[in-house]
Structures are given as structure tokens and as C-alpha cells.
């Protein structure tokens, strides 16, 4: 009935432009046809210590539905069904360690070969409570209790990995009752206690058979297959694509899951460039990029939530083409190059040229994002994410600045914005106007008129056009003042 146009985080998916709309019977036949081919296709993972082998699983069934409906494990809750509240948080462990993920936007094939721990699996099999659970009871960390399973899983995951920045690890778990104070007290107490040894810190399980959807092991396999199936939907982290299923109630048609493509992962740093594989998650990128561009790392702490950063990929955030994704403006400000591949054909383009218009990217059928590279450069990057809520919100404006100043004169400037146009977009006129000018507030005042020539932002539920433009202009002032050593960061202020 209701059209629900949505612009949300747009991170983590790659999908074709066209939308499938099969008639029900046609889809049914198609599925049955696939099922015939996939009879031996098995999805294997561990659930709370026990091996699970599923045959005939629907590839776009979410882990949350499977847990609650198929397995009757109702401890994991549905709060929003879009990855924004964390009530469905589960722990997923693989070779790289345990991670908190939102089960509501996690498709079953993404679990292939991994270990899943739900709230029911936290307590030691020998009895008693997990230290996090005990601390939550002792510190009155639950009131209505509905968000509590998600919190305890997030907290247990953090305890296992040794992460003690609770504002960071719990930003993706919403609680409406407690005001968070008792939860933080519980987290602090639990962090000081040893993690129970029944929870795996790493997990690896050989997979006997392919899963219920195409799941290539290499970029070569993907490239060959995608040329033949250009209308298929590529699933990377599913943090946005998941919503196409849960909220838009779309049939994704033929899908391929890229999570097993090992050669699309990894961050490589050379003297010339930083190469980021398309399937690198934002959580993985954060520590890798921090030594080179701490401003990006700082912004990534506010990029969605831990659960989303653990799933969402750099490639997905780009390929998805959203005008409000936080990744592209930062990468564009760093002069990033996008590496696309179609079959055996590769091409590299400046990242900003990938975004043609709202909803339209420079990507051919069967072509996918393989990597993005950033030239090595002296770090001048600052990223300013502006949203109603500080953490886990979609940017109203995301401004990313890299401005080089020599002898108090601007010699180079790259400024890119999300939220200011239908695509991630550079402030080219502002950049040009800055070049050769003194690096002072007077200059910023003098060139203030350039902003309107670069951007005509829109008004929506996040911000008005006027505010967007004012804030964007002021962000450059903030960049300048920070450069001059003024105190401009509310996060650094204490009572």
C-alpha cells in the first residue's frame, strides 16, 4: 500500500540496477529449478557449539527469522528489522575472531563455515551465568529486558576481544528504559573478568559443499560468473540489501554472496598507495587506516554501528551509489581510484567519476568493484560527520577536507561532501577559489559565495537545504580553526 522510499546507510551491497519482478508462479518454478540443482548444496555452521547442516535453505532468509521461527530460539529479538536497534545482535566467529552482527539483516549463506553464538549460548554449559549476564543483573542493567539479549551479546563479544571502549561497542544497541548508565556500569565490571572459555575466540570449519547460493571463492570465479549473470544481485555485507528483503519486501532474484572471496579482502600498503579490497569491512579498515589518516578513522567510529561496520564493506558502500554514504566523500578527498572489473577486463577511474547522477553509476552490466586505492600522501584529511544523533546516525552532511598549505598559502585542496547533492560530490568551485589564497578566515569569508555555485542541497527529514549549506560552509571554518590550533571538537571537552 504505502510506498516507502528509503535512503539509509547504503553500505555493504552491490546490486544490479534492474529489479526483478517475477510473477509468483514464475518465481516458484525458478526456485524449484534452482532447488533441483542445489539439492546437495549445504549450509554448514556452528550454532552455540553444535554443528548445523542445512539443505534447501532459502538464500535470503535472515538469521533472525531462522533462529526464531525455524529453531524456536526466541532469545534473539526483533526490534526494528533493519539493523538499527541491536536487539537481534549475535556473535559470529571465524578465523579473524568474534564479531557482533545484526541477525535481522544477515542472510544465512553469510554464515557458511562460521560459528554463531546467540544469547542462549552465552552462559557456560556447566551452569551459572556469563560474567556479563551476572553484571547486568547485579547493576540493574535490564528493565523491560527486550534489548537486553542484544546488549549482553555485544558486551560478551567485546569482553572476548578485550575492547573496553563501551560507547563504541554499544553504539548499535538501543535501550529505551535505563538511560544506559547501569549498562555501562555492568560493562565496566564485566570487562575486568575473564571470558568464559567455552566461547570460541577464533573458528574455522571446512565446508564440504557449496551453499544454497553462488558463493565464489575468488574474484576470478565471480568475474566469470557475473558476466554470464549480469542481472544477479551481488551481496557483500547485506546491511542495506537486507532491508530490500525485510522492509521493501523485494525478491532479490538470483543472488551471489561475495563473503568467501578471499582475494577481495585485505588492505595492502605500499610506498605508492593503500589498496583496499572491495570486501574489506569498515571495521577492518578502521585500524588499518588509522596510522595514515586518523581523521578518517575518527569518522569511522561514528559510521553506523559496530554491528554494521562488522558487516558493511568498502566496495558495497561505493557500488551502492548512495548520496549519503560516509565512505565515498572521505575517499574522494583522498583522491582515491576505483578499480572495476568485468570478466577479465579491468579499468581504473577516479572515484568521483563513478557517481554519475542520483541512482546512476558508471558501472556496466556484469561489472563489479574490485578494489579502491588511495595514493600515499601527507595526511591533511579531516572528516566531519553531521547528524541529529552523534552515534549511529546517517549523515545530514558529511564533509571531508584535505587542504595543503605552504607558507600560509593554499596550494592544493580536495573537498568532498555527502548529503549535499544526489551523489557524493566535490566542492570544485570552493577548491579552485581557495588555491593561492592566504589560509585565513578572511579568505573563507571572501569565497563564501562559491558554496552556492557548488551545491544546491535538498531539504528532507534529516536537515533543511539552508542548514546543510551553512553547516558545510562552517565545516571549512572548523577545518581552518583546527589547523590553527583552536579548540573546535566537542568530544575533547569535559565538564
Amino acid at each position, binding site marked *: *500500500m*504505502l*510506498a516507502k522510499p528509503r535512503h539509509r546507510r547504503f553500505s555493504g551491497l552491490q546490486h544490479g540496477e534492474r529489479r526483478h519482478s517475477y510473477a*509468483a508462479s514464475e518465481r516458484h518454478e525458478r526456485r524449484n529449478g534452482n532447488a533441483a540443482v542445489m539439492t546437495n548444496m549445504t549450509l554448514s555452521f556452528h550454532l552455540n557449539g553444535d554443528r548445523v547442516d542445512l539443505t534447501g535453505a532459502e538464500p535470503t532468509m535472515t538469521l533472525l*527469522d531462522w533462529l*526464531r521461527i525455524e529453531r524456536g530460539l*526466541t*532469545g534473539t*529479538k526483533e*526490534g*526494528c*528489522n*533493519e539493523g538499527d*536497534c541491536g536487539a537481534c545482535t549475535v556473535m559470529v566467529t571465524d578465523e579473524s575472531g568474534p564479531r557482533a552482527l545484526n541477525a535481522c539483516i544477515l542472510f544465512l549463506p553469510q554464515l557458511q563455515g562460521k560459528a554463531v553464538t546467540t*544469547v*542462549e549460548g*552465552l*552462559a557456560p554449559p556447566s551452569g551459572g*551465568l556469563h560474567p*556479563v549476564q551476572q553484571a*547486568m*543483573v547485579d547493576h*540493574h542493567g*535490564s*528493565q*523491560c*529486558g*527486550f534489548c*537486553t*539479549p542484544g546488549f*549482553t551479546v555485544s558486551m560478551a563479544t567485546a569482553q572476548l576481544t578485550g575492547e573496553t571502549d*563501551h560507547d563504541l561497542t554499544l*553504539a548499535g544497541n*538501543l535501550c*529505551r528504559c*535505563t*538511560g*544506559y*548508565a547501569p549498562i*555501562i556500569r555492568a560493562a565496566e565490571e564485566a570487562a575486568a573478568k575473564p571470558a568464559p572459555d567455552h566461547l570460541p575466540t577464533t573458528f574455522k570449519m571446512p565446508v564440504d559443499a557449496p551453499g544454497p547460493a553462488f558463493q565464489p571463492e575468488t574474484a576470478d570465479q565471480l568475474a566469470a560468473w557475473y558476466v554470464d549473470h549480469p542481472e544477479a544481485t551481488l551481496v557483500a555485507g547485506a546491511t542495506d540489501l537486507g532491508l530490500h528483503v525485510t*522492509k521493501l*519486501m523485494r525478491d532479490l532474484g538470483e543472488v551471489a554472496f561475495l563473503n568467501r572471496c578471499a582475494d577481495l579482502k585485505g588492505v595492502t600498503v605500499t610506498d605508492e598507495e593503500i589498496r583496499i579490497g572491495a570486501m574489506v569491512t569498515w571495521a577492518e579498515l578502521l585500524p588499518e587506516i588509522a596510522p595514515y589518516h586518523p581523521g578518517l578513522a575518527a569518522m569511522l567510529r561514528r559510521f553506523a554501528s559496530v554491528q554494521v561496520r562488522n558487516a558493511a564493506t568498502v566496495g558495497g558502500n561505493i557500488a551502492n551509489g548512495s548520496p549519503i554514504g560516509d565512505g565515498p566523500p572521505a575517499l574522494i578527498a583522498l583522491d582515491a581510484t576505483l578499480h572495476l572489473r568485468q570478466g577479465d577486463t579491468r579499468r581504473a577511474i577516479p572515484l568521483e567519476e563513478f557517481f554519475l547522477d542520483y541512482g546512476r553509476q558508471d558501472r556496466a552490466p556484469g561489472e563489479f568493484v574490485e578494489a579502491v586505492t588511495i595514493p600515499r600522501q601527507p595526511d591533511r584529511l579531516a572528516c566531519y560527520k*553531521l547528524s*541529529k*544523533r552523534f552515534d*549511529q546516525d*546517517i549523515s545530514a552532511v558529511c564533509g571531508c577536507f584535505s587542504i595543503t598549505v605552504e607558507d600560509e598559502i593554499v596550494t592544493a585542496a580536495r573537498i568532498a561532501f555527502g548529503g549535499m547533492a544526489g551523489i557524493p560530490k566535490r566542492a570544485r568551485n570552493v577548491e579552485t577559489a581557495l588555491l593561492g589564497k592566504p589560509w585565513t578566515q578572511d579568505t573563507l569569508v571572501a569565497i563564501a559565495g562559491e558554496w552556492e555555485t557548488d551545491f544546491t542541497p535538498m531539504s528532507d*527529514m534529516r*536537515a533543511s537545504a539552508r542548514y546543510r549549506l*551553512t*553547516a558545510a560552509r*562552517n*565545516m571549512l571554518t*572548523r577545518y581552518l580553526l583546527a589547523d590553527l590550533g*583552536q*579548540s*573546535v571538537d*566537542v*568530544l575533547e571537552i569535559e*565538564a
Partner: protein
Amino acid sequence: MTEQVRKPLPHDSGPLHVTGRARYIDDIPLPANTLHLAFGISAVARGQITAIDLNAVRAAPGVVAVYEAADLPFANDVASAPVHDEPLLSTGRVNYVGQPIFLVAATSHHAARHAAARAKVEIAEETPILTVEEALEAESYIEYPPLVWSKGDAEAAIKSAPRIIEGRIEMGGQEHFYLEGQAALALPQENGDVIVNSSTQHPTEIQHKVAEAIGRPMHAVRVESRRMGGGFGGKESQGNALAVACAVVASLTGRPAKMRYDRDDDMQITGKRHDFRIDYTVGVDDTGRILGVDFRQYTRAGWSQDLTLAVADRAMLHADNAYLLPHARIESHRLRTNMCSATAYRGFGGPQGVVGIERVIDHIAHDLRLDPVEVRRVNYYADRPLDAAPSEGGVAPRPAATTPRDISGQEMDVASRGAAGAFPVEGTPEAATDGQTTPYGMKVEDFVLHRLTAKLLESSDYAARKAAIEAWNANNPVLKKGLGFSPVKFGISFTLSHLNQAGALVHVYQDGSVHLNHGGTEMGQGLFQKVAQVAASRFGIGMEDVRITATDTAKVPNTSATAASSGSDLNGMAVKAACDTIRDRIAGVVAELHQVAVEEVSFADGMVRAGSNEMPFAKAAQLTYEAQVSLSATGFYKTPELNWDRLKGVGRPFFYFAHGAALTEVVVDTLTGEYRILRTDILHDAGASLNPALDIGQVEGGYVQGAGWLTTEELVWDGKGRLRTHAPSTYKIPACSDRPRVFNVALWDEPNPAATIYRSKAVGEPPFMLGISALLALSDAVAACGTTYPCLDAPATPERVLDAIDRVKNA
């Protein structure tokens, strides 16, 4: 063993919550043939349905049945208000985006949702009434004429005052965002009966509406509610539609039926906090003392009446907050608009009224260059003397005995706050003529905010920090700090006075274990644990001997909603009455056995003592059973001394007041309007707390929720009446890092002078209003950018803060 009351015991369901074993409606194992329901909803805010084509819905996989209004066998009505203005399914008119038009029953939740999306509904659109201005222009009112309450002669007092200040504040509504969405499950029984499991704060209303919808007496409907995953007022009336839909389908098909809203549907279909615009004119002297004030309150009620009359009344009742207003006039406009029907939300209009007067005080302080805390103290009611004796215990007689009214045949839900406008008041109350009185003529006799404020200012180091912040701001051109102080005085009781009653059912078994039931519902506030502490204390036994059970209309009938912060006041007293009945019976048996006077029998430490003899409580229970004396009792309580006329705005609507105060410090970025709450200090009056840990939990949680309402939680409707913020991706409740960096919360542990359960005070709603200090702190920081008053509206999103900064800078 000390008494169980006063102990900081954890929530009774804590271990179940943390292990995922606490069961909510959606977790209940279902019979194999259960049907799952979904509504098809209107995409248009106002219009007439001209055609409905549901063929594709019926043909969708898994669909078993589709119902329109004409298919409903009995009452098509889920309204709380007696005006019957909320059909379950539209009968042709649509009045808001999200209004249910048809109902799908399918074999799974997803099948029902997918099918509902396939309908073709044609609606002849009409121009919706959306804004306050549009509603005033169209004279679109829920209640007309606007209600006006007066004390003294405000107009004359203002006119003759040395200074007159005028202004306006707009404050947005608020989505409840209970983490558990609305849900219900109906299980058909033999003989046409039905058992309903509902996530509801008001099982009796569910029972009533379901009974009407299936054409059966209330005795055919049993409603059970073990717990809610949050309520906050959003489950007082908004669960009716789901429960009724499930019961009707169960009744028609003989199959169990379950319904839960997807989050986006929940946020579009159900009501929210009322938004308000408040215009004010105040006359003051040079010390900031208010001589007269005039408030005009405007609220958008949405498309139906629901609980609006009572909500808007409470906004008027809190227009004074903590301040003695010598002359006051309060005018209230309840406007009908084409939006979801605004409903109960923690504070129930009180917070909106309090924001109005706090804005006035803040505006006065700014214009007179006075310390806002001092202006508050100048205007405070006088404290109750420390040496005043507490009120007598027990139940005081009602002042004016009212003759029973004939309400038969009115087919109204008399247990709903929505019935507020339906009862004429007999034995009309008079305004008190002695002592300090509220604008509605009630004496204020239990005020504590002078001494509470003094203690909070001292513990929070107010004076020194205020000076330090001024110095800091002088040295920081970009970032500005602000301090905000706000007190609260909140009236406790349902303002529909007859709702102030509660029942309990207590069984003691032969082994001394106790089965506890009462009319209150558990939504996370810890009510069940507090009441269990009362029961354990009455019998002198341990908590492990008291079994808390689900709220059940078959055990305790005719309950009021768990609302108005009344849960522990009312149900604690009812349980106490039931326990004391049984205790007296046991005492009688034991006294006779040991040949002592009944008064010499005592209950403590798990033992029953009679003179020098003692025995375990279990043994005493067994003896009582053998003596053929009943170990089961009901208990009942009604709040004394209430007498209230809402139309005249005169009387005593409240049994007592609860108080609190907060001081909040913020930092604001003047380039973008972004901000952080740096520190909050709270001192809150919970009387002699039944459970300090649970009460502090209410204070901390209430503060953050209140601050969220006034800062980041913005509801945005577009020009066609479509809510654009209908999911957590776009509607932003506070996240973990939004809590104050430093958060000091303490209880003001002075026993309630009123004879409440163990002299405790209600604590559910009052601390919500402490979040207002966050808005005032932001305003203070903005004010540091210039000399004019910021007039900061709420929610104070970064955009509104930056707008205010620009106004102040450019003035």
C-alpha cells in the same frame, strides 16, 4: 532479616532478561494452525475510499482470509474515548496515513505483510489538516470550546506589572520506541470464549474492547499480560487494534491468531506524545517574581480523541510546575488533525505544561539578567515545614460523598482515561481559600524543592561551575558551554478520579509459599518486584517465597491502566490489604493455639511469633489450613481525598506531589549546532523508596528519555501528512554515548507525608521532566553567543541550535 521493602533488589526478571528466557508475546510457542495478521493501511492522510481491489491480496501465497469493515461481526471500534471515533477498519473515510483499512490473515507473519502490500486502494484525496494554524483556521477541534482555567485576574496583574514578557515555544511530539513493538495473540476457547495475550498496560480495556468486538460479555474474555518490552504510555490504548483483530479472527475462524506490527508500521499506525505550541505573556517585578501569567496551549491531537482530553488537562495542571502563580489564566486548544492520534506518553501532558513555565522562567531570568536558579527560588511554593507531622495512615473518607451515576447503556469504557470528558462532577469542589494554592485551587502542602534545590546546588557545586563556565565561554569563540537547572513538581493520581483504585489477589499455600497477583502490569519499571517486596514484608518472609505472576483479568478484574505513575501506589496498597487480611487470619489461628492476644502475634524473619513461641511461616500456614481458615484473599484500595472538576479546573485532582531537580551542563559547537551533555546531577524525591535501585533506574532512564524528547527525537511529517521518520534509521532516540558523561543521581529520601504504601512516592513519570534541564542548558550555551534570548524550540536538533545561534549572533 530486615524487611524486604527498601532493599535495592534487582528486577525480578533480571536473570531471565539476560539469558533470553524472558518471554514476550512474540516468543510464545504457537499452536500449529495459528494465523498471522497484518493490516493494509492508508497511504493518504484524508479522503474517501472509492474502490478497493483485494484480489491480489487474497491470491497471495499463504493468505487464508481478508477482512474489510463490513466483514466484522460486531463492534468495529477500538476507541478508548467514549465517542467511538476509532474503527478497527475504515468504513470509507481515511483520516491519516497509516489508518488500517483491511486485515489479512495468513499462515505466517511475512506472508501476511507481503500480501497486504498487494492491495489496490483508490482514495479520493482531500486536503489534510496538518498544522496548528490549519486546524485553527478550520476550527477543527477535539473539544470545543477551548478549556480555560483561571486563578485571580491574570490580565490585570500582567497589565500592572513593572515588566511584561511575551513569547512562544514549540515542542515536538515523541515516539515511544518501546523496543518490543505492539503484539497480541488470541487463543479461541470452547463456548466462544477467548484468551488474549497482549503486550498492554491496560488488560481491562483490552478485555472490554475484545468483548464488544466478538459480541460476548466480558466474562468470555480473559486477558493476560506477563510483561511488556517497554510501554511508556504507548501501550495504554494503542494495543486495542491488534488484540481486537486477533480476537475477531480467532472468533471467526476458530484458529489462534497473532499480530505484531513491523517497526515501520508500528511507528506509522500508533499514536505518539502530543506536540504543543505554548504562547505566553507574563508580568513580573524586578526580582523576577511572577505577578500574573497567561498561557495559551495548542496541541495537535491527531485524527481521533483517544486520551487527548486527559493529556491536555494534565498539561494545564502542570502549567505552574513548582511555582506559586498569584494570577494565572490557562487556555487549552485540542486540535483535530489528519495524523496518527496522539496518545499517552510518560508524563501524559505534564512535561509539555512544565516546559511552558520553565521557558517563561528562563526568559524572565535572561531579560532581567538574573540567575535563573534564583528566579526559580523566588517563585517556588513554600516548603512544607520539616517538623510537620505526616498525614494519618489509613484511608481517609472522601470529602463529598457522590451519589452513584447511572452509566448503563452508555457503552463506554469507564476504565479508560479517554472517558475523562464523559463524567459530570457532582458535589462540585471549591478552590481552597487558605494557604498556597495551585492555579486550580489545590493547596500545596508537601513542597520540598527549596531544601532539595539547596542540597543539589551544593552537591553539584553550582556557583563555582557557573562562574567557571562564564570564564570558559569568554575564552572559547567556537565552543560554548551552558548550564541548565530545572525542578519538577508532579501531581500523583489519575485525574479521572474513579480510576484511582486497585485490586489484588493473594494466595498462601500450605507450604507457606505465596502466589501474588494484582492489577498492575510490568513494562520494565520493576513494579512486580516492588509489590512482591511489599507482600514479603507483610508476611515477614523472604522474596524466594513470593511468586510473581502474570497480570490476568480473571484473577483481578476491573483494573485501571498501569499509568499515571500509579502502579506501586495503588497495587502496593491493594496487595498490602490482601496480605493483611490473610495475616490477620493466620494470627488468629496462632493466637488461639498459644493463647495470646492476636495483637501479640508478629511476622518477621520467616517466623511467626506469639509471645515466647515461634514457628516458621510455613508451619503457621499449614496450621491455618488445618483450622479450616481461608489462606486466600482479595485486597482493594482507593485513593482518598480526591475531588476534581475538570471543566471548571477546580478541586483536588492529586493525592500528593513528587519532586525532583536536575542540573545539566552541555557544550555546543557554534559552527554546526552539535552538542554533548557533559554532566548531569539529579536529586529526586521518591519518598521513602520501596526499592532505591529500581527507583534510581527510573530516574536515570526518565532523564535520558526526557532529554531525548527535547534534543534529537524529531518527528517529521511532510506536506501530505506522511511521517518521514518511521524507523530508528530516521528517528533518533538517545544512544549509549548520549547519556551524560558524568551522571550523578541520588534520591531525596524524605518519607511521603501522605499515607502511601510505606510512605514511598510514585517515580515512573516525574523524573522524565528533569530532562528539561538539558534543553535549558543548550539555550544557556546559545545565549552565550550574544545578548538576545535564544527562544530555542524543541526538539533542539543541531539544526535548531544553529538557527538559534544565528538569531542571537545576528540580533
